[in-house]
């Protein structure tokens, strides 16, 4: 690490170095994140698509920038891998957007934010800034594609780090469960964990995440995540244990969902119907607003003339 390059008296630097150390001593199967060697305020990360969702098996890269006032000001995140949930190369601010009802607080960390980011993937964006709403099939195929190669981004130095993270994540994340095994991606991870395999065997295509998202509004999800993260260290320091807790977080609720297989049968036609209805409504509202605007501006003009 380039520790000697930085003013260790600087509180932000001190804090960030501690986070790097903590991140390395408690690695997680769900994400990986490292600062650039030449600038510890600039990190690369990759997260694993939450299991039981259309993102399962996906490896999504992104960039984190920490402000000079960290941890008083929140880090900013952006994704680099096309994923169908967040726009790429666009900042997603986890603290004050729709994603999070509360303000950022210094007791959170890069780890907290990454866990939250994973948990947000299967939630309904509700038009939040920096979000997109792709169809499940598209998201699923993006998840498969995401494994093939890491995104190209930034300097050679950064690219090296991205590739390194990608390799490491490939070994941790089992590939996307497929209905047709022919499409199964070539890089089968060698060290699959038993528990993971069990969860990915359940069904080829699980709308579990979506069902969960529909049932619970965003704030609740946010709350749960933050609580879970803060509870994680309770389990003591050993890495594997913490990792398992975090592992369980995004896929919470999968057990009830499995008992309701009928949830799986979601007609895309329904989706389309709603979309058209929404478009129609939007147009109607716009027309009304326009009319009102014309009216009021007409009045305004009259007043203006009067004075």
């Amino acid at each position: 690490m380039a520790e000697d390059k930085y003013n260790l008296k600087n509180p932000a630097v001190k804090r960030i170095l501690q986070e790097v150390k903590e991140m390395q001593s408690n690695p997680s199967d769900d994400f990986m994140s490292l600062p650039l060697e030449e600038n510890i305020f600039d990190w690369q990360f990759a997260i694993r698509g939450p299991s039981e969702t259309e993102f399962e098996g996906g490896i999504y890269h992104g960039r984190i920038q920490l402000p000079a006032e960290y941890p008083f000001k929140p880090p900013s995140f952006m994704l680099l891998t096309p994923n169908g949930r967040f726009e790429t190369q666009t900042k997603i601010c986890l603290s004050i957007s729709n994603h999070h009802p509360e303000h950022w607080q210094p007791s959170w960390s890069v780890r907290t934010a990454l866990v939250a980011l994973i948990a947000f993937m299967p939630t309904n964006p509700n038009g939040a800034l920096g979000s997109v709403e792709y169809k499940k099939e598209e998201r699923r195929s993006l998840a498969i594609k995401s494994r093939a190669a890491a995104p190209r981004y930034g300097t050679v130095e950064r690219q090296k780090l991205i590739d390194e993270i990608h390799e490491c994540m490939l070994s941790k994340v089992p590939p996307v469960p497929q209905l047709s095994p022919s499409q199964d991606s070539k890089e089968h991870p060698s060290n699959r964990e038993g528990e993971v395999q069990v969860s990915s065997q359940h069904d080829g295509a699980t709308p579990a995440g979506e069902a969960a998202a529909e049932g619970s509004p965003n704030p609740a999800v946010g709350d749960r995540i933050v609580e879970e993260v803060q509870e994680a260290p309770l389990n003591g320091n050993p890495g594997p244990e913490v990792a398992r807790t975090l592992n369980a977080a995004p896929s919470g609720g999968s057990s009830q969902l499995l008992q309701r297989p009928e949830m799986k049968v979601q007609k895309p036609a329904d989706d389309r119907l709603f979309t058209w209805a929404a478009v129609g409504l939007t147009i109607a509202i716009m027309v009304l607003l326009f009319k009102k605007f014309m009216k009021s501006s007409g009045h305004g003009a009259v007043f203006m003339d009067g004075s």
Partner: protein
Amino acid sequence: MQNQDGVQVDGEVESATSVPTPEFDEWANFGDQDIMQQHSAIRAEEAEKIPFLGDKEPLSSLAAEYQSGSAILLEKIKVLGEQYAAIRRTRGDGNCFFRSFMFSYLEHILESQDQSEVDRIKANVEQCRKTLQSLGYADFTFEDFFALFLEQLDSVLQGNEASISHDELILRSRDQSVSDYVVMFFRFVTSGEIRKRAEFFEPFILGLTNATVEQFCKSSVEPMGEESDHVHITALSDALGVPIRVVYLDRSSCDTGGVSVNHHDFVPAGSDLPNASGCSEKVSPFITLLYRPGHYDILYPK
């Protein structure tokens, strides 16, 4: 009182540390970032008016503020003048209670050189650390803030190489990198205490905001700039074992004719002050804050 506070001390003590500023401009797409910048711009504008910590001013300056204002307030300030000599203002940025408390406490230690009080509060701080750990906070999220407070505590005690003068204490209290960290330390301590004694605080919090204890801590205690209420004061006073007097200056008047100024003493629950044990008689607070709706300043008794 012994030190003259008028020495040239401006806000130019801002963090002299150099940090490579990440290039934020390269992303065209704004949004949330915009809103945040706007927020902080408004704050900065507001902040320009008063440093984190002002100079000591005679109470007459308070009266001057209300010259053309409410007669009740002027009357009350006159009453205040019988007991209090001076006021020291703090910046109204939502952290004023914590900043007032910080300076008032450290100044008291600097002037009294009360070693036993320092030992006592250090034990409480240790307890707070354990509380946070048991609540599941990761160490690295709070230990910097704790360390910085303990450092200030040691430096106001004279006779070691880190000792600082009264002027230096003022300078530090105006330095964002010190002041904000100490404020955050208090916020952690306050949040930890509220969560630890959730059943006790719950009804008060419900009365205030209709939020759960968890939500309240997350949205009204831990984030910087969130104003303090009696819940915060009670929790901080309890956690650190430091009694606090708050004098209320508002328009309320008693019908009986005579104008009086109300105050409330926050006395730590289960106070284990050696002198307070046995008799629950008066623990006289050495920290006195003046509360005007929405803001706290420091008051100096005669």
